[in-house]
C-alpha cells in the first residue's frame, strides 16, 4: 500500500512536470504548426540559468525560476525572428531538421561554457521537507510540481478560451490571411505565443529538474520523450496533453519501480499501441 501510494504520487508529479514542459510544444505544434524539436533545448537552457542563479549566485529558488523564464525567452525571441519564421510554412521534414540542428548547436555551446557535468538546482527548505498529510508524508517538491501543473493547465485554458488574445490566436491559426485582413497582427501573435511556449518550457525545465536532471545531453535525451508525449496527446489540445502526460508518466514511473531492467520498453510499447489506436493522438483534431 505504501509503495503503491508513493508510486502514485511520483507518477502524478512526474506527469505534471512533463505536462508543464510539453504543453508549450503542443501549442507550437498544434496552433502554429511548427514541429519544434528544440523545445527540450529551451527547457535545458532554463535549467542552466536557474542553476546558475540559485546555486552559484545564491539568489534563491523562486528568483531562479523567474530569471530562467525571462532569460530563456530573451534567447528564444531572436531565434524566432531569425530562424523559425522561415520554416512556419515549410514541410515537416524541414522543420524537424532545422530544430534538430538548433538542438545540436545548443548542446555543443552549452557544453563549451558549462562543461559536461550535471547541474543541480538547490531546493528551498519549504520544498525540501516533507508535508504531513495525516496518514503519511509527501515530499513538498512533489506537491509543488503537481500544483504548478494544475495552475498552468487552468491558466492556459483561460487564456486561450476566454481572453481577447486567445480569440486572436485561434483566429490566426484558423485562417491567417483572413485574420490579417481583419487587422490582427498575426506575426506579433505568433511571436507572443512562441515566447509563452518557451517560457513554460523553461519553467518546466526548472521544476522538473528533480526528475529530468540538467546536463548538456538533456536536450537530445528527452527530445524524443517530449515529442512522443505531445503526439500521443494530440497536438494543440490542452486536455489531450494532460491526459497523455499523466498516462505515459504513470506507465514510465510504474515500470521503473516494478521492472527497472526493462528501461523504457513499456513506455514505448504504450506509445505504439496508443498511436495505432488513435492515429491523431488521444484528443487530436482532424486536419
Amino acid at each position, binding site marked *: 500500500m505504501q509503495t503503491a501510494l508513493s508510486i502514485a504520487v511520483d507518477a502524478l508529479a512526474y506527469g505534471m512536470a512533463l505536462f508543464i514542459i510539453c504543453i508549450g510544444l503542443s501549442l507550437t505544434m498544434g496552433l502554429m504548426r511548427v514541429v519544434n524539436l528544440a523545445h527540450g533545448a529551451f527547457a535545458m537552457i532554463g535549467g542552466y540559468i536557474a542553476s546558475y542563479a540559485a546555486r552559484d549566485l545564491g539568489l534563491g529558488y523562486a528568483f531562479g525560476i523567474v530569471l530562467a523564464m525571462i532569460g530563456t525567452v530573451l534567447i528564444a525571441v531572436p531565434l524566432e525572428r531569425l530562424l523559425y519564421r522561415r520554416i512556419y510554412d515549410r514541410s515537416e521534414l524541414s522543420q524537424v531538421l532545422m530544430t534538430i*540542428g538548433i538542438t545540436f548547436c545548443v548542446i555543443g555551446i552549452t557544453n563549451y561554457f558549462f562543461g559536461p557535468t550535471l547541474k543541480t538546482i538547490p531546493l528551498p527548505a519549504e520544498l525540501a521537507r516533507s508535508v504531513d498529510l495525516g496518514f503519511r508524508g509527501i515530499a513538498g517538491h512533489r506537491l509543488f510540481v503537481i500544483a504548478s501543473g494544475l495552475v498552468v493547465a487552468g491558466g492556459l485554458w483561460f487564456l486561450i478560451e476566454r481572453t481577447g488574445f486567445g480569440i486572436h490566436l485561434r483566429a490566426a491559426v484558423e485562417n491567417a490571411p483572413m485574420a490579417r485582413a481583419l487587422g490582427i497582427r498575426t506575426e506579433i501573435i505568433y511571436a507572443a505565443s512562441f515566447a509563452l511556449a518557451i517560457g513554460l518550457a523553461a519553467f518546466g525545465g526548472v521544476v522538473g529538474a528533480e526528475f529530468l536532471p540538467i546536463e548538456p545531453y538533456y536536450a537530445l535525451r528527452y527530445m524524443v520523450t517530449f515529442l512522443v508525449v505531445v503526439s500521443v496527446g494530440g497536438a494543440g489540445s490542452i486536455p489531450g496533453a494532460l491526459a497523455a502526460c499523466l498516462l505515459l508518466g504513470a506507465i514510465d514511473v510504474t515500470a521503473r519501480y516494478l521492472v527497472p531492467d526493462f528501461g523504457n520498453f513499456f513506455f514505448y510499447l504504450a506509445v505504439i499501441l496508443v498511436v495505432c489506436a488513435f492515429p491523431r493522438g488521444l484528443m487530436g483534431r482532424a486536419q
Partner: protein
Amino acid sequence: MPAAASGSRTLGRDLLGLALIALVGLGGYWLFPDNLAFLTRVISVALLVLSLDLIVGYCGIASLGQGALYGAGAYAAGIACVHGITDPVLLILIGAAAGAVMGLLMGAIMLRAHGLPQLVLSIAIVQLLHEAANKASSITGGSDGLSGMSPAPLFGVFEFDLWGRSAYLFGLGLLLIVFAVLRFVTRSPFGMICRGLKEDPLRISALGIYAFPVLLNMFVISGTVAGMGGALAAIATQVVGLDSVSFEVSANALVMLVLGGIGHLYGALIGTVIFMALEHIVAAINPFHWMTLVGAVLIAIVLFAPRGLSGTLDELARLLTRNRWGAGR
C-alpha cells in the same frame, strides 16, 4: 520525363555512375590502406542511408527509425554467425531477410498514421527494439555487445584479416550490386508509382492504385538494403553493439541523407561520405564541436539548400548550361 525516351542513354549514364563509384572506392583502398575498417563502416552506413532514401526520398515518409532495420540485419547476421553459420554471403542474405521482415512489420505499423504521429511511431519502434535488445542479453549480448563471431573466408579463399582488405572489397562489391539494383527499382513503374504517391497521393488513388501495398513493398525493399548494411557491419567488425539499433544511428542517417540530397541515390552516397569523413576528423578533436558543427550545417541546409548538396549541384549545373546557351545566342 526523358528517362523513358532514351533508354540506352540512361543505361550508359548508369554504367558510368557505377564505374565512378567503383573508381572512388578503389581509390580509397589504395590511398588509405590503414583506414580500411573505417571505410568499410562508411560503406555499411551508405547502405543504410540508401535504404532510408527509398522511404524518405521516394515515398515521402519521414522516418527517424531506420536503425531498427539496420540493427535487425546486424543482429540476425551476428547471431547466425555465433551459432555456426559462417559463410559471409549467406550471412549477408540472412541480414537482408531479417531486415525485410522488420521492414514489413515496421511498414505495417507506420503506415497506419500520417505526418507527425508517423514520425513518432518510427522513433518508438527503434527505441522499443533498443530496449528489447538490451533486455534479451542472453541472445544479443546486451550492453556488452554481441561478440565471438569468426566469419569463414569469402568464397573459401579470402580471409577476413586484421587489415580488413577483403571486408572492404566485399563491401564495395555489395554496394555496387545494391546500387545497380536500386537504380533499376527506382526507375521501374513501381518506383514511379512511389514517387507519384509522394507528389500527389489523391491523383494516384484516382488512377486506381491502392497506396498501402505499394508503400509496404518499398518498406520491405528498404529493409532488405538496410539489413545488408547491418550484416556487412557485423561481418567486418565482428561485433554487434546496442548502438546499431538506436535513435542516434537513425537520426544521423537522416542528416547524411539530407546533406547529400533527398530523393537522389547519388545524394545518399555523397552525404554519407562527406558526413562520416568530417565526423572522423572533427569528432576526434572534440565531440562537442562536432555537434555544434552538424547543427550549424543542418540549419544552413534547411535555409539555403533545401535539396541538399546533389540537388544544389544539379541546379548550379542547369544554371551554368542555360547561361552558356544564352551567351551563344
